[in-house]
């Protein structure tokens, strides 16, 4: 499950910000490690909402520093839904 989410995020990050899928590992931070700026991060979130059929409120996005944070958030949100 979390591997599927990780792979799905890698596809989104490649599409939105040109990130090499091989670089997308749980400990990486979006902004400093993957060079995803705050505007592109919004695109990542909206694409992830659609791909994984979850809601990620803007207030929660700030807590998603690393890829791992996003994977767990999406996993929890998916279970809750």
């Amino acid at each position, binding site marked *: 499950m979390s591997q599927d989410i990780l792979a799905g995020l890698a596809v989104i990050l490649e599409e*939105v*910000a*040109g990130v090499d899928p091989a670089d997308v590992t749980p400990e990486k931070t979006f902004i400093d490690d993957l060079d995803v700026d705050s*505007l*592109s991060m*919004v*695109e990542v979130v*909206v694409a992830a*909402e659609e791909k994984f059929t979850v809601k990620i409120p803007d207030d929660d996005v700030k807590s998603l520093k690393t890829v791992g944070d996003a994977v767990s958030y999406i996993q929890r949100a998916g279970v809750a839904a």
Partner: protein
Amino acid sequence: MTTTPRQVVVTGLGALTPLGGDVASTWEGLLAGRSGVRRITEEWIQELPVHIAAPLAVEPPLGRVEARTLDRSQQMALVAAREAWADAGSPEVDQERLAACVASGIGGVTTLLSQHDVLREKGARRVSPHVVPMLMPNGPASTVGLAFGAKAGVHAPVSACASGSEAIALGLDIIRAGRADVVIAGGTEAAIAALPIAGFAQMQALSRRNDTPQTASRPFDKARDGFVLGEGAAILVLEAAEHAAARGARVHGVLAGAGISSDAYHIAAPDPAGAGAARAVRAALRSAELAPTDVIHINAHATSTPSGDLAEAVALRSAIGSHIDSVAVTATKSMTGHLLGAAGALEAVASILALRERIVPATRNLDALDDEIALDVVSIDNRKIGTGAALSNSFGFGGHDVCLAFTI
């Protein structure tokens, strides 16, 4: 006490136009008298009264990721700026002495329209977070400023079809005033879309020669019936002469002066007496410390509208006097269509090349000069010229008049 203003030279040129993907191919197209106008076959244009435009000859060569957060006008400006910067020798410049003046007449209008569709069809959550930086009229200036690290100021004068020339005039002022040593200056426009075309058509400003696109843009011709909307970008690297000399830069020409005025006549119609335009021409000559008799070539604004071309001819005679009979006038838009906010920048490039190569490209489609237009418009064959000054005019809806003066 007066001091001689700093001389400003042009050390780099870049262009992405309906005639080619760079300056060399565009200039070759102008000399060959090629038309960049074609029939647009996409579905969205079918309901409009105008089916012709002058799109880019070559799509902006940018990577997918680089392009997706830039409006088309920004993409074009970036590509032209990279060419100009490389042409200038990719100089090492103190970033705090580097400015960018890149104008657009309309800004990111295709982004605005397509994102409005997204908003209506898919809702606010799906609107791109890049939409504001993509549609803002200063977006292209910022894109170029970021790409080259310009820290002395990023500017985007907005004056409709005079914007590109006004950006270059501003660059001149900035260097003369000592606020920067190098300015990346020019214009860009990407407005070939249903709403702008419908709007210009409603103003009766566009040619309706849908069946013969390549003859539609015919400045100064008796049978002209409006302009053809084009798209593209052109960028100049302006540099303080001493800065260029210190690094041994190759110099294309001198931006000797610029004149700016405004009509205060009508929001869109030209003043038939051409008073504002004539004031801009006189101001450019004063700024360049040139006499009317120094002028050997004029790249006219000449969009191919019945009233605009006529008013410009009146203005030129008023400002230059009888010497206008000895000036080789040309209308680049006969081949490129009207690039709106990029037009003045493209025509600045053409003016500099005409002086440097000592040849004026002929105006296309000038089958019969309008009887009321008393200008020596170069047509049929390109014309060799000597050395002297060239002027490039740009006028815009809103009553903007800008004239640039170049020497070699």
